[in-house]
């Protein structure tokens, strides 16, 4: 198939199809009345086809069905250049991969404002593009000062990921490399928990508070829907997208048809976020987590950034699987007794609630669940034997911990535990001392209290 001979090839203006700046679409009825409306996103399918995301614009589709000629004006969010696309309506789709991809984006935003059961994609209207031209302007454009992405750095990124020997190193390397090589300011990684129903933040970079340990239910909100649908969700105009859904919500509430509307979910991550890019981390068809990037600038992530995130997510997925496989073959315990006596400061009281394995340090909540149970076991062993060195394998096999079904996730839980301690506690640390080994560092005398149900 030869490429269509448009004045401007569609693939050259890919950033216009990311849903950052609303487009406009004009159509004409058979009796000659024009119609114009805004639409939040135009999807590029290939070099000569686009899809319109249809929620409400009934007159437009009625016109296109009767008179298939339409015209779109799209905007490049980086430069402000405008392009006119002459289009010809071909057909409507209400299922299939393209519809799935388009509906996931809408559903993610709708879910964030409690509208997932009410506000859904009605259809994807597929059109052939017959011409694409830049809209003439009588002045030189002021170019943005944003640096261009250098894709040769992808190799370096890949090396940083594949050289990681532990999950902790992996997530740290990934976030550090993405920030250093590509300048992404705000990043976090979430992993699927043992139940397969929730995601928890295992590492973050560029936030006033790390947010490590915070959770999201799969299916809830932008992050939860991205995970559930295994779709990349790229929002270049988060506040505008949320505002649109809120307007729809208030219109439904105003008509008294509020059935199915749920409460709005607080947006995790950056306050005042304008761009959000969420990519599922998968390996062998299994969802492992999410890689999320955020920015305080609208339209921060273009389609080239999308390649970087996809590359990173794919590599981290494979590396996670490899590390798990290696963890199962790691050496047995070599016990070591603590050579150090804790500093002579006040005794720290550590409580463990057996109901949910939550651990409190001096009445401050630290962590719960599997990570809480592991920490408690380490602290108990430390108190009884003054031992500080442990292997992941002995933790995994420890009958008291009853962890058989979570063995795949142990390393990620230890990484989470390490980060929570760094965030919340100044006298307990878990350090790596080699492949599959950890060392507990205790800086105060401890008093352990178990609280049973």
């Amino acid at each position, binding site marked *: 198939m030869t490429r269509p001979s448009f004045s401007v090839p569609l693939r050259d203006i890919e950033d216009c199809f990311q849903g950052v700046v609303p487009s406009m679409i004009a159509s004409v009825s058979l009796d000659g009345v024009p119609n114009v409306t805004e639409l939040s996103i135009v999807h590029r399918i290939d070099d000569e086809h686009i899809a319109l995301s249809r929620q409400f614009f009934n007159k437009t589709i009625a016109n296109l069905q009767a008179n298939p*000629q339409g015209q779109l004006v799209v905007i490049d969010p980086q430069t*402000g250049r405008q392009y006119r696309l002459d289009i010809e309506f071909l057909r409507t789709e209400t299922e299939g991969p393209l519809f799935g991809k388009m509906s996931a984006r809408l559903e993610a935003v709708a879910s964030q404002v409690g509208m997932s059961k009410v506000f859904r994609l009605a259809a994807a209207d597929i059109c052939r593009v017959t011409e694409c031209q830049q*809209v*003439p302007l009588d002045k030189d454009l*002021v170019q943005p000062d944003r640096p261009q992405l250098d894709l040769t750095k992808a190799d370096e990124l890949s090396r940083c990921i594949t050289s990681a020997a532990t999950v902790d190193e992996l997530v740290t390397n990934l976030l550090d490399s993405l920030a250093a090589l590509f300048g992404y300011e705000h990043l976090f990684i979430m992993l699927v928990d043992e139940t397969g129903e929730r995601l928890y933040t295992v590492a973050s970079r560029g936030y006033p508070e790390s947010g490590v340990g915070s959770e999201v239910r799969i299916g809830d909100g932008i992050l939860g829907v991205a995970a559930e649908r295994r779709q990349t969700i790229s929002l270049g105009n988060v506040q505008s997208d949320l505002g649109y859904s809120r*307007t729809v919500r*208030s219109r*439904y509430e105003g008509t008294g*048809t509020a059935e199915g509307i749920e409460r709005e979910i607080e947006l995790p991550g950056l306050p005042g976020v304008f761009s959000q890019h969420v990519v599922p981390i998968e390996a062998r068809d299994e969802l492992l987590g999410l890689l999320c990037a955020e920015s305080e600038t*609208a339209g921060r992530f273009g389609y080239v950034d999308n390649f970087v995130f996809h590359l990173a997510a794919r590599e981290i997925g494979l590396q996670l699987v490899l590390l798990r496989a290696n963890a199962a073959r790691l050496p047995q315990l070599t016990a070591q007794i603590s050579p150090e006596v804790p500093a002579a400061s006040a005794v720290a009281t550590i409580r463990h609630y057996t109901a949910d394995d939550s651990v409190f340090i001096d009445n401050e909540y630290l962590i719960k669940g599997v990570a809480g149970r592991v920490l408690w076991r380490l602290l108990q062993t430390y108190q009884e034997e003054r031992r500080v060195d442990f292997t992941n394998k002995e933790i995994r096999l420890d009958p008291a911990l009853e962890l058989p079904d979570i063995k795949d996730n142990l390393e990620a839980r230890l990484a989470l535990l390490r980060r929570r301690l760094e965030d919340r506690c100044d006298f307990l640390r878990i350090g790596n001392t080699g492949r599959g080994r950890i060392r507990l560092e205790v800086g105060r005398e401890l008093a352990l209290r178990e609280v049973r149900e």
Partner: protein
Amino acid sequence: MLVIDRELKGFLESGLAIALATRSADLRPHAQRVWGAKVSPDGRSVEVFVDRPAAAQTMANLRDNGRVATVFVNILTNRSVQLKGRCVEVGDPGPEDWSIIDRHREGFTGATSALGFPAQMISNLWSTQVVKVRFVVEDLFDQTPGPGAGRPL
């Protein structure tokens, strides 16, 4: 005859995102961006300003049949209204018109900045020259997203 009331006039003349559509004799639609609107004192017609370098086809269509549709969107609240009508006059903007256009662009830049867009990118959207288009309003539609979108006002 349809008359735009005070409240709607106030809305249309604030710093909104505005687009204009016309059509050719063979029913091909044509769209372009609009900078600023002014409702006539009797509320029956509206003047809008379109970028001149991008207006060749719009002008040809207006000469051919004069049919016009314009959509006005408040990008912060999503309130959206479409006006349909017939063009009755095309001309150059006067000094008073330029103050409307400048005020409009300033308001629009403020709204887009609240949504995180750099002012520099937004100012790249407009040309330095515009054409004034006056049309008589024949129909009004509520286009705010949600149930009821598209209903006549």
